[in-house]
């Protein structure tokens, strides 16, 4: 249900790996050695990949007719939306998160830094998916809402991005500092996981008027 056909599964993975590889190619070997940029590269690439795949979240359901089934069946909309976005996260984003340690080791990061990066991505990406779901539900009925979706959703992605990268960048100051940033990241994610389905249900009921 997440993809139109199986080949789209490779699109997100290839896009992520390619964008991550573009940065050291353009920066050159001198700047890549400084290691400060590396968590930022991974985080920005994951944000861009998630923005690409958000189209498959509810738009495909809207086109195939599943959307009307959501609204008509007696099951509470909160759980339907919650599980839909959760499965989207598991199928689409988790592969990207699991590829990251392999790429990170390829960039000569320490083992502990790779672990913190992996944990930050695990904590932060569900929040990204749920907040992206809010954006998708608002532009659902628009035929070409893709660019507007990016514009609407990016202000909400910025705090997650900031905390995600700072958890790795501040690792030099101690493990507890990184864990503090991870805790705030987890807070934002859980907050969005609990509240976003309500907002999305609201937006679904509003856009069905058309």
């Amino acid at each position, binding site marked *: 249900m997440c993809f139109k056909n199986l080949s789209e599964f490779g699109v997100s993975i290839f896009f992520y790996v390619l964008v991550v590889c573009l940065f050291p190619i353009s920066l050159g070997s001198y700047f890549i050695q400084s290691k400060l940029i590396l968590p930022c590269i991974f985080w920005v690439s994951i944000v861009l990949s998630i923005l690409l795949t958000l189209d498959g979240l509810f738009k495909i359901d809207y086109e195939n007719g599943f959307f009307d089934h959501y609204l008509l069946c007696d099951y509470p909309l909160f759980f339907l939306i919650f599980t839909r976005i959760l499965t989207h996260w598991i199928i689409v984003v988790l592969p990207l998160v699991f590829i990251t340690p392999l790429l990170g080791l390829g960039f000569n990061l320490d083992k502990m830094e790779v672990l913190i990066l992996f944990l930050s991505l695990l904590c932060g990406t569900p929040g990204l998916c749920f907040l992206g779901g809010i954006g998708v539900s608002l532009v659902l*009925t628009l035929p070409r809402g893709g660019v*507007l979706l990016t*514009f609407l959703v990016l*202000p*909400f992605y910025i705090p997650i991005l*900031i905390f995600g990268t700072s958890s790795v960048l501040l690792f030099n100051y101690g493990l507890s500092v990184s864990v503090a940033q991870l805790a705030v990241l987890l807070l934002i994610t859980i907050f969005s996981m609990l509240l976003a389905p309500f907002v999305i249900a609201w*937006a679904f009921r509003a*856009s069905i008027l058309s």
Partner: protein
Amino acid sequence: MSYFTFLKNILTFEFFYKKFNKFTKLLLYVSLFFFCIGLFFCFFYTPLDYQQKSMFKIIYIHVPSAFLSIFIYLCMGFFSFLYIYFNVKIADLIAMESVRIGSMFTFLALMTGSIWAKPMWGTWWVWDARLTSELILLFLYLGYSGLRFAIKNTKVASKCCAILSLVGLVNLPVIHYSVQWWYTLHQGYTLRGFFDNTISGSMLYPLLLMVIFSLLFYIASVIFSVCSRILEIEKDKVWVYKEVFTFTKKINRKV
């Protein structure tokens, strides 16, 4: 039951137009009065700052526009909530018209902040918490206008934009408390309460006058925009014809 019918009579477009349209000119002139007094005091009565000499006086535009950008977003959130929950149609119009002014004041705050920052901090922009969250606020305003422009069905557009503004309310505590939570470049609180201020009196009063000016200006322009939007929406109704007829009769009589 009579309470609801009373409220329904109060909250129609016609009632709003007839009661509030008279205040537009008055509010505008009063706000301009405060503007002139505030600027007069600013230029002639406030002393020069110890370090910044006279450069700090851009505060008299920067602080009111920053305050107003947050206040307008609060108003927008409040009226969006009224629209979504209680289905008050005026509230949706007020929110829609506030966005234009709100985005302009946010942009003004960011621009005057940059102009002030260049001689003081040596850089046009820095990515500290308060500036970044103010930029996010600008994107939220622009996103609201973009969504309203993109969705063609007006009812669906109003509801979706109201939801967007409510979701964006999370940003406001971040802007307000950012100077308390993160100790970065932007300076801390200046106005801490009513009696506990660290700013001296002669600098404070023009600031308060400018803030009052900006509030009155916002209210005047929102009423003006909402009234013109009401006329546009209700253009098939009889009362609009009567209003336009009396208005043109007044103009012809003056000519």
